[in-house]
């Protein structure tokens, strides 16, 4: 088997070729227009576009479409590749949603490690005041890289969970548009390549990339703009596919209110991704054009407005934070009933609260801009709308308590992570209102309090549930059990460490520690008798916690890799779940359901004797 038969290798080769062609093309164009042949930035912009296109063609994600264009039919579904080892299908274009789901998930874990590694590096720098081993330019690049790499991990991780689980949960054979699904996944790979490549030139405006800082300085910015643009493209196509799948492909008897609750979380998230993502794609394109063509959208010298960018950016990026959490909260709602052996309390309320959060989330973007200088009269409505999101979020929390109350709880690793997620997300969510109140936000804005707030919401709403999901569906994916002892160890290291990290960040924030600074005033918060100042103690605690978290995640990676070979066989339904995906063999077969399923009951009727959720029609049965 030659290396070039792996789609991803072909993709990279084509990406390099495309990049080179792009450079040549751009230089030729410049010469033709009578300009000097080389200008780093414009040439790279063209090269990035050509290179990305090259990857998508080379990997084979558009081959079927090209065939359709000239009238060649292709089979609707492809099975596993013939004459190649089974693992190769994970490294090339494959239309099976389970394969794509796993591809997404592995990529997400990789990006989490990349983002985490940046955090580990700059956290080490921050453990003490003074500049140790990073210079401020590197530091600024690293925090932006940390932010975007981690956010990539979130979007891709959500793609992983949604792609693997949604079709299984609604009993569909695959997604509505399998080719589009594969295409949406593969866009992420060139996006990641360009993001990592941006390190070479560097860029120093943080993940928010506010102009006018981002419209001057290093060419590294262009890599980030276009990389995020590609990621956004993937989000839009992926969410379109998910919504169509959930609306059109449910089996007989599964009304929307009988879908497994995770699907509602994905629905809320997808609505946001489908629509709001256009705004970030557009705002980053505008930045790119402002840099290359000098179009002054944001530069006041040409009549533009730096505030416009903030509006466009946050109109997407605030709703986006709910994209990050809604599927995760869905995972929590999915796991609790299984391990409490009780129905999900208030199914409809939980389902609708996801949609409510998604919709109200569109009205609150201004809370990131309380100090930005827009009209004072706008501050109050944004404040009130922001506080309003607490209401549907609260409904989820209280309904979870209702689910646990009176159950017969057991605590394997996924359940521990679900409960941990609740406590962590609660901390993050409750640190939202002090930020939402303009008065206290004028103090807390751009301080580490905000950093503490959003790490807690992100970990509680995405990272913990994502880990819970990894453990929970691991037996379905691999057919084997992970190591329970290591799993519990992971939990018991990570949760206290995360608590220390997040509260530590809030603590130094209140002392006056600003965001995005490589070095800080050691006198913040005053001296203590230990010879360290209060802020340094706080920073050291955060750094130590960061190392503990990283260690525990490495433990998990080891556990998951190792158990795939030595773990005990899991059987079809080790958790005794009612959800359809557990009624079929593990690992799930190529075409999931041998025959169409039919829904005959409520999804979470645990403890109701004789009730079933789905029946598998047998042949001849109508």
């Amino acid at each position, binding site marked *: 088997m030659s290396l070039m038969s792996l789609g991803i290798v072909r993709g990279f080769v084509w990406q390099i070729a495309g990049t080179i062609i792009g450079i040549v093309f751009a230089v030729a164009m410049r010469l033709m227009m009578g300009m000097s042949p080389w200008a780093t930035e414009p040439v790279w912009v063209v090269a990035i576009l050509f290179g990305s296109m090259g990857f998508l063609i080379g990997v084979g994600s558009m081959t079927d479409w090209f065939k359709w264009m000239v009238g060649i039919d292709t089979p609707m579904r492809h099975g596993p590749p013939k004459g190649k080892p089974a693992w190769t299908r994970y490294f090339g274009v494959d239309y099976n949603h389970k394969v794509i789901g796993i591809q997404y998930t592995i990529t997400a874990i990789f990006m989490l490690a990349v983002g985490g590694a940046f955090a580990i590096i700059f956290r080490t720098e921050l453990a003490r005041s003074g500049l140790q081993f990073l210079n401020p330019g590197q530091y600024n690049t690293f925090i932006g890289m940390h932010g975007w790499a981690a956010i990539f991990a979130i979007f891709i991780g959500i793609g992983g969970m949604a792609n693997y689980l949604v079709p299984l949960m609604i009993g569909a054979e695959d997604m509505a548009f399998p080719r589009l699904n594969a295409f949406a996944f593969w866009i992420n790979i060139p996006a990641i390549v360009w993001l990592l490549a941006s390190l070479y030139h560097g860029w120093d405006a943080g993940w928010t990339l506010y102009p006018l800082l981002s419209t001057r300085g290093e060419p590294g910015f262009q890599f980030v703009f276009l990389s995020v643009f590609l990621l956004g493209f993937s989000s839009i196509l992926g969410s379109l596919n998910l919504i169509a799948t959930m609306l059109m492909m449910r089996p007989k008897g599964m009304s929307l209110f009988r879908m497994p609750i995770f699907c509602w979380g994905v629905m809320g998230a997808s609505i946001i991704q489908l629509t*709001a993502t256009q705004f970030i794609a557009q705002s980053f394109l505008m930045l790119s054009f402002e840099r290359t063509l000098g179009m002054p959208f944001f530069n006041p010298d040409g009549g533009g*407005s730096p505030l416009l960018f903030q509006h466009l950016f946050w109109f997407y990026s605030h709703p986006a934070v709910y994209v990050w959490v809604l599927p995760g909260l869905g995972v929590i709602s999915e796991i609790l009933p299984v391990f409490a052996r009780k129905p999900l309390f208030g199914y409809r309320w939980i389902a609708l609260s996801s949609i409510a959060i998604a919709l109200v989330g569109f009205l609150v973007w201004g809370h990131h801009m309380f100090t930005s200088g827009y009209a004072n009269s706008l501050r109050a409505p944004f404040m009130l709308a922001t506080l309003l999101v607490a209401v549907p979020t609260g409904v989820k929390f209280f309904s979870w308590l209702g689910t646990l109350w009176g159950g017969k709880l057991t605590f394997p690793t996924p359940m521990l992570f679900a409960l941990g997620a609740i406590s962590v997300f609660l901390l993050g969510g409750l640190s939202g209102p002090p930020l939402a109140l303009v008065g206290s936000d004028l103090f807390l804005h751009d301080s580490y309090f905000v950093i503490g707030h959003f790490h807690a919401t992100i970990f509680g709403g995405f990272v913990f549930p994502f880990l819970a999901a990894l453990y929970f569906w691991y037996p379905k994916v691999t057919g084997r059990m992970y190591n329970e002892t290591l799993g519990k160890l992971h939990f018991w290291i990570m949760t206290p460490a995360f608590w220390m990290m997040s509260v530590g960040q809030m603590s130094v924030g209140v002392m006056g520690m600003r965001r995005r600074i490589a070095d800080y005033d050691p006198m913040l918060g005053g001296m203590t008798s230990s010879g360290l100042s209060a802020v340094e103690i706080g920073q050291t605690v955060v750094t130590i916690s960061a190392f503990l978290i990283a260690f525990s995640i490495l433990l998990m990676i080891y556990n998951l890799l190792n158990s795939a070979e030595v773990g005990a066989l899991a059987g079809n339904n080790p958790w005794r779940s009612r959800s359809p995906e557990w009624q079929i063999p593990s690992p799930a077969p190529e075409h999931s359901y041998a025959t169409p399923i039919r829904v005959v009951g409520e999804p979470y009727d645990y403890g109701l004797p004789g009730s079933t959720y789905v029946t598998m029609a047998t042949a001849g049965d109508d």
Partner: protein
Amino acid sequence: MSSATTTAEAYRTQLRMNRMGLWLFFVSEVFLFGGLLATRFYLWGNTRPELDQSIGLIVTSVLLLSSLSMNLSEKGLEHNNRRLFLGGLVFTFVFGLVFLVGVMVFEWGLFPAFYEGHLTPGENVYGAVVFAMTGMHALHVITGLAFIAIVWNLGRKGSYSPERHWGVESCAIYWHFVDVVWIFFYPALYLIGHVAH
């Protein structure tokens, strides 16, 4: 896309799904163009640049005509009138091309030797926004033209039947959508506000 082996039932299911997908795509696109409109109103408020009104009127009318010919073409296919079908596509393509050339040559001044444009993208917000809006729209027109060319070619080879022609249908809806966007862009660029530049 259809394969000869798929049953009528499977085709109908697939068709319903495809329609859903296309409309979801439009929902997304509405936000893209909405964002551009928002940018226009944020930056220009109640003003606008001096654009060539006759060019604007001409290209807009041509684009509307193209929607008409596209509609005729689709009707042609449904009634198995292949001449109308293919001819309609050709007309639509030509109208689309005229629109594109009108915008690029006259509004953008792409060939200054032939016609001087009124604005350049870099001079100020007026130029920037005009180029952003017309540029994004032109990108859609270009993809639409490519789409039409592909459909025409496949239609010529007889790939579509009155019963099965999702390719034609999606192409037509897409083209109408691009037209509708222009119906919003035209007044925003040419009519609303007083001339300030």
